[in-house]
């Protein structure tokens, strides 16, 4: 019987032999921390509350047969109205099920993962059945193909000419869009804000649509986001002026692109809405291998598009990263799963820019493990200092990851806050934050969230060594 010792960070180790992984010598908490996810984290994967509830019902042993696990996957067969085969990939918890459900992950997937979280001993370590092995192999094939594609794209002269022609046409269209926007904004200032409250949504929408036609969707989005401002809050004139002003700076910068530093030019183009090809990012120079903690995640909805925003923090590199994934409808999956409160080893490739935050995951190694504290936790004053610094390099930065330590939630009628020991505080987003208050119990906790300069959106927290998700899709 061969045995291998696999060291863990805290000087303990784990013994691996033919029967699987043995956690002798670890306390129950350490054992749990190494592998299992909380029910909460798994339920957060569900696309809607009905799936979560259905998945919970299936998280019991009696609905499953032939449960098993290997180093790279876990699987089972569920007896529903037919026999469904469900499998999950360990590295990223992707789930594939043979049921006809259009939801992703389906309730069988959620049930399987929940069962693994509560009763891992129910999964015997056995050889992968064919339907599991072939799926896993196909997945690694596809990602290998993706990498190969990233490396091997060769262009013919015709390709290059066509591309340049398209490019030039786009630049012209954008130029026209910028001019139109400049006139539009100048008119608003000339006439004054006073009449804006009575203008209907078409006032902004017509101009935004023109910008979309001009192939500058980023600018369209900026306009759409201010459309609701007039009359919405008591300080709306100042807020509107700030946003229109920052947009004006962007337009000016866009007129002088070639005068700008290359990284700032990149940022401006991205803000206008020019996309950067994923392959070129993956091949790019800014690649960082590290242990990445998933700080938190939420889904933003804009014009029928759902954007999943996932914030990461790298342990050794101290880099912060934002992963964006898109989906057109709730039943269309986001591609890859990043579970808040876990950490994985991997290589991230950053998009170019003066203060790089957006990244893509080039490769992941091994299984994710659960975290017991948030990395890079800082004070409120630190957060403000770092945000200021980031703004200095990218003036159009609008959101920044915050990881606060020693914070106590303070409920208040109008606006909740998160207060540090010295009384420095940040306002939280509107609404009530009962889960945060409950899990803190008035004691200081670690909170991860997204800061937009005005309010913090809480995404997750750590209390007593356990991570809890704070943001969820359904507002219960």
């Amino acid at each position, binding site marked *: 019987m061969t045995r291998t010792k696999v060291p863990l960070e805290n000087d303990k180790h784990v013994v691996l032999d033919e029967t699987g992984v043995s956690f002798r010598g670890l306390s129950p908490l350490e054992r749990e921390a190494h592998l299992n996810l909380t*029910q*909460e984290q798994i339920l957060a994967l569900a696309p809607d509350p009905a799936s979560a*509830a259905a998945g*919970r019902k299936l*998280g*019991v042993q009696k609905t499953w047969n032939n449960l098993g696990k290997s180093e790279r996957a876990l699987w089972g067969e569920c007896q529903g109205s037919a026999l469904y085969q469900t499998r999950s990939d360990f590295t990223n918890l992707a789930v594939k099920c043979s049921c006809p459900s259009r939801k992703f992950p389906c309730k069988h997937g959620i049930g399987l993962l929940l069962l693994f979280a*509560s009763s891992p001993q129910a999964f015997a370590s056995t050889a992968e059945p064919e339907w599991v092995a072939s799926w896993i192999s196909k997945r690694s094939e596809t990602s290998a193909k993706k990498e190969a594609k990233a490396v091997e794209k060769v262009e013919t002269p015709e390709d290059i000419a066509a591309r340049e022609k398209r490019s030039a046409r786009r630049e012209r269209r954008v130029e026209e869009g910028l001019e139109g926007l*400049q006139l539009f*904004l*100048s*008119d608003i*200032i*000339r*006439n*004054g*804000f*006073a009449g804006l409250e009575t203008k209907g949504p078409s006032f902004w929408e017509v101009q935004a649509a023109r910008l979309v036609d001009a192939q500058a969707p980023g600018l369209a989005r900026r306009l759409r986001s201010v459309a609701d401002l007039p009359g919405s809050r008591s300080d709306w*004139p*100042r807020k509107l*002026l*700030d*946003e*229109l*002003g*920052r*947009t*004006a*700076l962007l337009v*000016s910068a866009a007129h002088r692109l070639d005068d700008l530093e290359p990284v700032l030019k990149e940022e401006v183009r991205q803000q206008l809405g020019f996309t950067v090809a994923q392959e070129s990012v993956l091949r790019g120079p800014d690649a960082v291998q590290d242990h990445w903690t998933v700080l938190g995640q939420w889904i933003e909805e804009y014009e029928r598009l759902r954007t999943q925003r996932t914030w990461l923090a790298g342990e050794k590199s101290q880099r912060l990263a934002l992963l964006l994934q898109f989906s057109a409808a709730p039943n269309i999956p986001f591609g890859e799963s990043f579970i808040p409160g876990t950490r994985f080893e991997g290589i991230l490739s950053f998009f170019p820019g003066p203060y790089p935050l957006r990244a893509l995951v080039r490769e992941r190694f091994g299984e994710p493990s659960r975290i017991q504290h948030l990395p890079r936790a800082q004070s*409120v*004053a630190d957060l*403000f200092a770092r*945000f*200021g610094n980031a*703004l*200095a390099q990218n*003036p159009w930065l609008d959101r920044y990851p915050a990881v606060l330590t020693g914070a*106590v939630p*303070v*409920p208040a009628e109008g606006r909740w*806050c998160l*207060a540090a020991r010295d*009384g*420095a*505080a*940040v*306002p939280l987003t509107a609404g009530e934050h*009962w*889960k945060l*208050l*409950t*899990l803190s*119990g*008035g*004691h200081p906790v670690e909170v991860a969230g997204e800061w937009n*300069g005005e309010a913090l959106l809480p995404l997750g927290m750590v209390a007593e060594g356990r991570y*809890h998700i704070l943001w969820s899709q359904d507002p*219960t």
Partner: protein
Amino acid sequence: MNRIEQIAIVGTDKAGEADPGSGTPVDALLPIAPEEKEWSLLQRAGASAVYRLAGARPIQVAPSTAPTPSETRSVCPAGISLLMRSMLQKEHAEVLPEACRLIEERTSRLPFTLLPLVLTATPEAMRNTMQPLLGERGRWLAQFNRDWAWASGQTEDSASIPQNADALWDEGSPSERRQLLARMRGTDSARARRWVEQAFPKEKAEQRAVFLAVLGTGLSMEDEALLEKALDDRSSAVREEAAALLALLPESRLAVRMRDRARAILHLAPEGRAPAKGKAASSGSSLSLNAEPPEGIDKTWERDGIAAKPPQGVGKRAFWLEEVISRVPPDLWEASLEATPDEILEAAGKTEWKGSIQDGLMRAALLFHDSPWAVSIWDNEIARTKPIPLPHRLEELLRLVPLPEIEKRVTRALQDATRASAPALAGFPFLPGPWSLQFSRRYVEALRKVETAVAQKEKVEETWFGTVEDAALKLSPSVFPEALIPWWEPSEEARYQHTTHEWKRVINRFTEILRFRQELAKEIDSWPI
């Protein structure tokens, strides 16, 4: 508001200023180009926005409440918490009392993650039971949300009377006064009565009736004078209330008058009690009753609460007979007729007035809380050979029956299975769960007989179906295996008949609840000590 903002609101056309300042150092970086005033102003505004954003300072806030104290109880396992969540989200909510009881038996608490849901979704009836399971943190959380105030565990001290009680009595809102009166009646009943006496001349009729009703608690002869006066009140509601209360005081003048009427209206027949002879001996006594309700009544009857005009469709003599009987304690008949309740009921059944007499006796048993009569009346209903719809007062009546008596009759009903009568089956909800192993087994056996009857399209007493869901919640966990052996279900076509449809519905519910309770039991069993 800085200058730039003011101008933006008004518009540069109207403002006409040459060099509006943002109040920040960016003004030096961005001069206003006169030919492009608006555009320059916008850029200055944008740059100053970034400036302010980058230089913002945190607000200052001091947490003003103390943190939660440490927990004294250990937390319950995750599996149980998952089931609790389902129940609070209305799935199998009926099992909630059992789950809480099992958790409390372990002196455990619910996990923190469940608390917001528990505090919001616990039904009012369950709040007292849930309170100890909240732990310190649950009670701490209650202070932050008005809807959670129930959790803080502070009960209103109902015994203490405030110092300024008299003032509160004079000035409070109607509901406050009622509550105060009830509290006072519990502490110093004479003072409460004096309050009502003083208030009477000034109050509206509705209030007078309400206050009189409160005096129903701790009623004594000292209240008689007030109540007798109230018999002459202008409002009929007040008069009715006074008459009802006086009937409860055996020494009151009204009660004496009513008893006299009762003895006159129903008495032994001239033949009285015929000696049992021959076959009659085995069928019990042959008590003979005569009812003689009057042809007309006078004002004293009306004053004592008996209406002159009967309700629609009821004959006046039958009405008056029932009214008088319902207003005297049923044990009066045992003395005046020298018979047992069972004998009296049986004899009443042989007269032409049996409906009025038996309904009157039932109402009297309820009014005077007479347990032995409640048992006899119930037995009488059970023994009916021709089934009639269940009297709507039966449920109230059963509350007066002692538990051992209920058990006896329900056990007999189980033995009768498909032949059990509806009134007997009506006793089921009154047996508290969890049922003993033996009783549970008997129930399942009886239900199997009902199953066979339904499957063979025989007639089954519908009240059986009403017991099934209740039984699912109370069966002892030891009988789960046998109770979960699959039950007969009707085929597609048969589903549309009423009986089989009902059977399918209740037996599915039964099975669902049992499965859920089984999961709960499994989680409790695997809970390490």
